[in-house]
């Protein structure tokens, strides 16, 4: 995809000069240092970087689970950073989230986990909920596992159930936090295929946080690379070594093994 093509798409999410730090007052650790980028609507943005570089922080800022120290996080034209509780609840209806550890409710069965957003956020009757959950289970090849609890599932299955739950309300934007961590290569490919299939069907904007480099780049329309508070945006992995930012070039050289300028 060309740079112009991605740039022409209306942004679904925008970060404007966002800074975020953590830790005690006297020992602050700066994770994001005045970073700005956009996530194009209907496309896939991959956020990559080493551990502890703030990738998951970006997702939490988008969802309003964290507030930035400074700057703005915009979803559409709404500023998440200043939203009240009720407005945030409404905004979150736009999102589906697949958590790193799947975050399935361990006291609920697979069926109950997938049905939860339908039961809590819609007025569908029990029969309609059952039918929709059954259809999702079939699409994700989970039929027959409805009555199992999360502790009885493999890592790959947990991810699929997590994805099924995230997609139940047909969200406009889906956030994936390390979707393939802890999975073997076969499972990883299966999750990637599943991602491609569901995105083609539902047409959602995807933000994938991952350190599965460089495999994850094959899914990306846009790559956001993070290192030591600095950030750069690319439309193709081959552009990374020629980044004007020193810390990004350093990451490309040390972690990805690229020869940089």
């Amino acid at each position, binding site marked *: 995809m060309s740079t112009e093509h991605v740039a022409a798409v209306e942004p679904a999410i925008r970060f404007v000069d966002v800074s975020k730090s953590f830790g005690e007052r006297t020992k602050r650790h700066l994770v994001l240092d005045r970073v700005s980028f956009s996530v194009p609507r209907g496309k896939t943005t991959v956020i990559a970087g080493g551990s502890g570089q703030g990738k998951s922080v970006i997702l939490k800022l988008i969802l309003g689970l964290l507030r930035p120290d400074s700057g703005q996080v915009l979803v559409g034209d709404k500023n998440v950073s200043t939203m009240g509780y009720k407005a945030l*609840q409404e905004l979150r209806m736009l999102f589906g*989230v697949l*958590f790193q*550890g799947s975050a*399935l*409710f361990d006291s609920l069965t697979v069926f109950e986990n997938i049905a*939860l*957003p339908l039961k*809590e956020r819609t007025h569908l009757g029990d029969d309609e909920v059952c039918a929709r959950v059954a259809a999702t289970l079939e699409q994700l090849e989970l039929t027959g596992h409805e009555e199992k609890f999360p502790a009885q599932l493999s890592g790959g299955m947990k991810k699929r159930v997590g994805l099924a739950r995230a997609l139940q309300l047909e969200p406009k934007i889906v956030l994936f936090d390390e979707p393939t961590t802890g999975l073997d290569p076969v499972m990883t490919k299966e999750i990637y295929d599943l991602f491609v299939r569901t995105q083609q069907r539902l047409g959602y904007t995807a933000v994938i946080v991952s350190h599965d480099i460089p495999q994850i780049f094959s899914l990306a329309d846009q790559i956001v690379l993070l290192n030591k508070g600095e950030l750069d945006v690319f439309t193709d992995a081959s552009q990374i070594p020629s980044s004007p930012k020193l810390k990004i070039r350093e990451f490309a050289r040390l972690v990805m093994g690229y020869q940089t300028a």
Partner: protein
Amino acid sequence: MNQPEKEPTSFLRIVGGIGDQALYILTDLGRMGIFLLFSLLGAFRRPFRWKEVIKQLGFIGAGSITVIFFTALSSGMVLGLQGYYSLHKFGAEGMLGSAVSLTLIMELGPVLTALMVAGRAGSAMCAEIGIMRISEQIDALECMAIDPFRYLISPKFLAALISVPLLTAFFDVVGIMGGYLAGVKLMGVNGGAFFAGMEQSVTNHDIRLGVIKSFVFALLLVWICTGRGYFVQKIRGAGFGAESVSKVTTQAVVLSSISVLVFDYLLTAVLL
């Protein structure tokens, strides 16, 4: 040219440390205050989670009956024996029913019930919510635009506020029967005098005091136990992961038990 920053003196470090701790305590109190408000408001938000309230009533209330029974029986029997030996010295064994029932209804019933429920159900609630927090299950609820207070916390509040006063009443009845067993059946105090003394001395005011205490203690223990679990990642010195949940659970039970004892004195002083 900038002068290098001076190292703070040990006096300044101590003052800074005290200030830092004071700020942390204030922040924590504010956080817990907002948590209490949201939890109480969550009980009135639709859709109501009656099934979850009933499940929690079973866990906090019905599940605590055995431990409350044995605690009440032994407390009542000990009171019966101790009371008999003390009153016997003055030839006032007839006052035993009065002494046992007043002690149980106004003091031991509400306090011991709250301490038992804090140890049994409070610790479990704290650990459950703490684990849900560290495994991102509460984040997942928020991301699905499901209010975690309405969904998770408020049913526990409602169940505790219903079941602890009922358990206290159960404690009082079993405790009085224990006192009767020890005083009347074992030590030979007149049974009629036992119950007549109780009827004459226990007033509505005494029962009201016991009921108010049980409600306040229920609120304290469910607030502290669920709140500590909810903020497990924000508690200073708790560490991370499973260790943080275990430390915070211990802290929640200790803190709620101390709060029950402190509020017991305060309520007695104000309402007696």
